[in-house]
């Protein structure tokens, strides 16, 4: 039976597979995502290279990193904001990148949905956790003894 035997307008399925799309084709979202990958990439270069330089190259490099080191950095709003922006941009950029890869390789739509759900949940949890850690950080936790920054009151 051809489509001609059914008068227009017809439903969007079976007889006219050309229009068998769910809702919209998301092209403006994909455009925004494409642009975001490039803009966030440029900003991330500065943030991540800066992060690696300060934590691996300066002073005693990786050997200087301990609780006191983190406390020293997060005592300044400068590094708090730095890490916050780096966290959000890197997670969004990475999540969107992995989403593209899932779309490319997972052919069954069920598999795609499952993988993307896992991806979004993982990214969401990490972004919330990372944000909370930056803002609820306590440099002088009660009862702690080792590696405290020098500005903590002596117990």
């Amino acid at each position, binding site marked *: 039976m051809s489509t001609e035997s059914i008068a227009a307008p017809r439903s969007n399925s079976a007889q006219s597979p050309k229009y068998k799309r769910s809702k919209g084709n998301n092209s403006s979202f994909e455009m925004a995502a494409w642009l975001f990958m490039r803009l966030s990439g440029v900003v991330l270069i500065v943030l991540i290279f800066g992060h690696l330089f300060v934590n691996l190259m300066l002073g005693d490099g*990786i050997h200087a990193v301990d609780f006191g080191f983190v406390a020293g950095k997060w005592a300044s709003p400068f590094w708090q904001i730095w890490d916050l922006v780096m966290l959000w941009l890197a997670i969004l950029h990475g999540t969107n990148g*992995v989403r593209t890869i899932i779309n490319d390789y997972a052919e069954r739509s069920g598999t795609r949905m499952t993988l993307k759900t896992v991806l979004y949940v993982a990214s969401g949890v990490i972004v919330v956790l990372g944000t909370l850690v930056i803002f609820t950080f306590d440099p002088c936790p009660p009862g702690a003894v080792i*590696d405290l920054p020098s500005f903590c009151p002596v117990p």
Partner: protein
Amino acid sequence: MWSWVGHRITGVVIFIFLLVHVLDTSLVRVSPEAYTAVIGAYKNPIMGLGEAGLVAAIVFHAFNGLRIIAIDFWKKGPKYQRQLLWGVLALWAVTMIPFLIRHLTIVFSNFFGGH
């Protein structure tokens, strides 16, 4: 083509590292002991090499990312994409050599020399 494969793989590797990295950093909210114990693992020579590999991946992804941006936005980008790839590899080497000297010195001298 290979640069695209490399860009994909490094992107995924960095993303997975980042998920774990936020988890290990979150130990600062548990206790200084917990954080310092886990970060201590980052200081042995094997992890030191792992960090070098991670940085190598990021530096490639970052410079190749700039190349992709140049190809997309610069009028002559597509024409010179091959030369740009050589540029990426050259910049990668120029960044990695001093980085490796400094990082591996820190990792190995502290391990064998102690404090």
